[in-house]
């Protein structure tokens, strides 16, 4: 339907969005790159000149670096696995005929509306607190010693909180996909005498692959940058420091902008590796 007129109109109408996003991407990126090659301590002398790759070397050789990278990947990976596995199961359950489906659906998606600061605080204090938390009550009820969740099992605790926040999203997308499954196909499979497990493996799971891709893509985007959940719960202590949080500490807590910026560049590189990988899959899946 394109004519020269509409094509040039299209370019003009896309320009604001493209220019804004390009600016939003490039300006801070270039500044970060510049700072990363400088010794820059805002509270201790400011800009102290170029230092080459010093910041990069220091950031990587810091004992906190590799643990932060692995914590990041563990959290992202674990949350993805948990939300997708539980999400598929939940979607299949919610797809069954039942009474009050609408209400159940709302109950299930509600955690998505809770701001991360609130859910972190609620989980941290009211559930995971080792003396007064609900879990502590529960443990004592069964005669077990309460667990100091956020100090003894900080990463699993954070994974649990974040999974609770993102399970609704995964469930809803997967549920929508399950509902769009052709019921005639399922009936045909039933006529062919396919057992439930192979019906799931050969019909349902392949049908869900596009939805799963979307869940992975969108959740990864958000999970790579989780911040409030750590800021509020552990403050990065007890081995729960992600790359994001480490950089945040370097920049704002120790006021070393040069070092933090170098970390930022690493984070950007990591994000890009993940992004390229994801875009490949998504690009392919979005064609369908």
């Amino acid at each position, binding site marked *: *339907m*394109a*004519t*020269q*007129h509409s094509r040039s109109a299209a370019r003009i109408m896309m320009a604001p969005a493209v220019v804004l996003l390009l600016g939003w991407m490039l300006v801070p990126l270039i500044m970060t790159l510049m700072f990363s090659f400088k010794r820059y301590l805002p509270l201790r002398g400011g800009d102290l000149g170029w230092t080459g790759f010093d910041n990069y070397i220091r950031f990587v050789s810091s004992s906190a670096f590799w643990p932060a990278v692995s914590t990041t990947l563990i959290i992202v990976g674990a949350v993805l696995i948990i939300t997708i596995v539980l999400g598929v199961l939940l979607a299949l359950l919610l797809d069954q005929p039942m009474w009050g489906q609408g209400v159940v659906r709302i109950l299930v998606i509600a955690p998505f509306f809770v701001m991360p600061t609130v859910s972190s605080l609620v989980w941290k204090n009211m559930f995971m607190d080792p003396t007064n938390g609900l879990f502590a009550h529960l443990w004592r009820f069964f005669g077990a010693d309460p667990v100091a969740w956020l100090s003894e099992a900080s990463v699993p605790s954070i994974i649990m909180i974040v999974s609770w926040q993102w399970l609704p999203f995964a469930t809803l997308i997967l549920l929508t996909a399950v509902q769009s499954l052709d019921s005639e196909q399922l009936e045909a499979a039933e006529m062919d005498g396919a057992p439930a497990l192979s019906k799931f493996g050969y019909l349902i799971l392949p049908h869900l692959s596009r939805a799963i891709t979307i869940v992975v893509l969108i959740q990864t985007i958000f999970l790579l940058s989780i911040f409030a959940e750590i800021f509020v719960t552990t403050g990065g202590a007890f081995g729960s420091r992600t790359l994001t949080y480490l950089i945040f500490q370097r920049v704002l807590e120790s006021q070393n902008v040069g070092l933090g910026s170098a970390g930022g560049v690493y984070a950007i590189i990591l994000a890009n590796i993940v992004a390229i990988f994801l875009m490949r899959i998504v690009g392919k899946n979005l064609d369908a």
Partner: protein
Amino acid sequence: MGQIQLNQVTKTFGNVNVIPPLDLTIHDGEFTVFVGPSGCGKSTLLRMIAGLEDLTTGSISIDGVDATDTPPAKRGLAMVFQSYALYPHMSVRKNIAFPMRMAKMPEDEQNRRIEAAAKALNLTDYLDRRPGQLSGGQRQRVAIGRAIVREPSAFLFDEPLSNLDAALRVGMRLEITEMHERLKTTMIYVTHDQVEAMTMADKIVVLRAGIIEQVGSPLELYHSPQNEFVASFIGSPKMNLIKGEEAAKHGAATIGIRPEHTGVSMTEGMWKGRVGVSEHLGSDTFIHVHDTGLADMITVRINGDVQVKHGDTIYLNPELDKLHKFGADGKRID
């Protein structure tokens, strides 16, 4: 006024040449039908006239004024789309009023025209409904109403009847033809259905692969198709085309005889064959004849009901004065 002229128009999509250089003049008040198999470029041609598609080269003029670079909104043409393209969020009244609203026409004039169009199209009772609440035929009428009220210099129809069921299609065909008689406005109508083309057109443009195969009145096309393609495309059932020895006898590479121009006999005749399937329509009988040694199958059309059985031997008597002859290049030999 509504004279449309295409000069050396071409269209390429990427590397694909959809329309090679093409010239065509559509006179004021003419009902012109573009007909051809799907993918022949007829819709593309219409969309180029509408301004929804650029020309790759060449020019289009409307009423003698070059309109090649005029945006669709300014060409003064109205279009009826295959999907009707009604605005689903607007009532029928608002749909019909939309082009006038865009033209900033005074409100009372708008209302006068809406009432007139609604009356002419039997839509008066439906003016406050949404398109979603209407039947296919009614939607079609709304689309036409929306086109009429602008009083365009020409109407463009893009396969407007193909989404209707058979019975409605015949009715709408008559209505559109009558509308043309009444308005005397230029109409360009795209269809793949040769029956629509034959029954509605003043002038038919037969297209294949972007090339105009023949331009002429319906009867010109029926009686003297310029080539084998037009010969087999126009007319139903299709003209029988016979190659080889039998054609050579008539000094042609291919001869064609229409099913309705062939008589049958159970006892004697020019060609002998075996009856295959016969289709009884009541008014006519189509007999498909095999094993003639001429072509895989020869179809004949006999008035009234003829009792023949599958497997009967049958003799065919073509009316030789109605034989069409084509050369090796597929072109007509007179």
